[in-house]
């Protein structure tokens, strides 16, 4: 699924190489953003100013978990949970520790998710943010445990949960233990839901595999960012099965909306406002008909 995803993104967005691609240019890396979806080029500075959204086609590119927190929650309101938790190597997968050490160095993260308490326009929430820069935010023991704990905390303290999902799916390096994280996180969602509490899932690029098939699809409200990839099976796998190329918009946020699996598509610059509004709408009020 993981490797598949990288290639999905490449194939999906680059498709067949165009004439332009063949003519090598000498523009230094990092100066330009080339949109993987519409292939248009933007100055990196303009792309950054636009909140990492392609100004040509509105593709909402990936954010790091820290960037996501910066644009979503009230400044200084984040209290991180379980920030030192790191994974063991349950199936003695070759070089798993080494790979993680290198990634920790590179990303400054301990694993692929940040969880904690925060506020959005003063409303207290539990927030979960996945970061695809860390092993494509695949779900291993740490991702599963941190998400489960955060949701359990929300249930115990009667708080809403907002989860920004992004993932390539199960973490192969943790074998079947990884698969069990789907059940663990979904179980926590079930209890949070039974307690009558609000859970909003915000699907960001890319939300796929075991995360789509567990807590990401279980929100009371499911929001997606424009043009992001959302699906269960890898695109290449499906193309292999049906022996034909799939249309560009297959497994996009818009595709999911059309097929009834997403409530709304919200642009990044409106996300905070929409979330604040939804939180307000769900604020515990007096029960209808309840006496003073």
């Amino acid at each position, binding site marked *: 699924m993981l490797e598949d995803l990288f290639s999905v993104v490449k194939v999906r967005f680059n498709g067949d190489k165009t004439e332009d691609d063949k003519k090598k240019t000498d523009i230094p890396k990092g100066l330009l953003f080339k949109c993987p979806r519409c292939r248009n080029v933007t100055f990196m500075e303009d792309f950054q100013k636009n909140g990492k959204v392609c100004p040509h086609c509105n593709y909402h590119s990936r954010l790091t978990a820290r960037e996501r927190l910066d644009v979503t929650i009230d400044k200084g309101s984040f209290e991180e949970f379980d920030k030192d938790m790191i994974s063991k190597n349950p199936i003695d997968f070759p070089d798993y520790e080494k790979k993680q050490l290198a990634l920790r160095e590179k990303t400054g993260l301990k694993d692929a998710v940040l969880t904690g308490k925060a506020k959005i326009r003063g409303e207290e929430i539990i927030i979960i943010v996945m970061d695809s820069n860390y092993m494509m935010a695949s779900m291993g023991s740490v991702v599963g445990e941190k998400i489960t704990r955060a949701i359990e905390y929300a249930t115990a303290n009667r708080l809403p949960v907002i989860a920004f999902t992004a993932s390539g799916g199960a973490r192969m390096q943790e074998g079947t*233990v990884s698969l069990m994280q789907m*059940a663990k996180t979904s179980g926590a969602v079930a209890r949070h839901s039974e307690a009558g509490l609000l859970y909003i899932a915000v699907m960001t690029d890319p939300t796929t595999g*075991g995360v*789509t098939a567990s807590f990401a699809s279980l929100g009371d409200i499911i929001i997606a960012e424009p043009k992001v990839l959302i699906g269960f*099976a890898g695109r290449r796998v499906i193309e292999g099965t049906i022996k034909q190329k799939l249309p560009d918009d297959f497994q996009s946020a818009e595709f999911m909306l059309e097929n009834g699996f997403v409530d709304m598509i919200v642009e990044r610059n409106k996300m905070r406002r929409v979330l604040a509004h939804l939180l307000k709408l769900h604020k515990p009020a007096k029960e209808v008909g309840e006496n003073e």
Partner: protein
Amino acid sequence: MNDLTACQRLDIIRHKGRPTANDYIPLIFDDFFEMHGDRLYGDDGAVMGGIAYFKGIPVTVIAEVKGRNLEENQKCNFGMPHPEGYRKALRLAKQAEKFHRPVICLVDTAGAFCGVEAEKRGQGEAIARNIMEFMTLRTPVISIILGEGGSGGALALAVCDELAMLENAIYSPISPRGFASILWKDASREREACDIMKSTAEDLIRLGVCDYIIAEADGGAHNDPQLTAENISDYISEALERKLKKGLDELLAGRYNKFRTVGEFEEFPKGV
């Protein structure tokens, strides 16, 4: 218990004479009545469900079926369910809850089907919904992996109070083929993949995923389906006895904790 390697077990579960749910159901249950459809879209041949007696106790049986010949294979899509299969399973599980029947799930799939229609009808959502609903289903659920337990497609029928595996069965986050194609970009190295995936019943007992191993006939279940069915039947008797004497709240707490405790991590690693 034999001591075969993971990939020798893979050969056994891929044996063309390997008994499937269609073979076991008549050997284990009495008066099986099949029920059809998810009441939303259609009827998926890859998931068979119905009600039956197990040693005089009414139960709901939900099984992934692979088929025993090409015609059956096609009818049940080689055991790879579409969303309507999982939704049928959930409908029958809810019915079991209503009538206080235990649910017996027989898992046997390479994985949920990967196709355009499956995506359009929400394969991810269907699996997610099953996982969540089975977690709080107020009746005992026993799942048994007969051969291949592939990915979320297996887990959708394996959120249970007890998970048993036939001794040669494997249960993995992806098929060995898929694993090999991710690791080495070479699907043909599935036999190597199989050995490092740690997905056999014994591995999964150690990892806290599987609770019991059910013995197969010598050399594999295909050598004596009748005997293997008797072993499965004995296991179900014992499992039901363990679970039926528990109160529902205790049962559900146990089910939640069964999954809650799987995972290996360090909270306060040295040097951080």
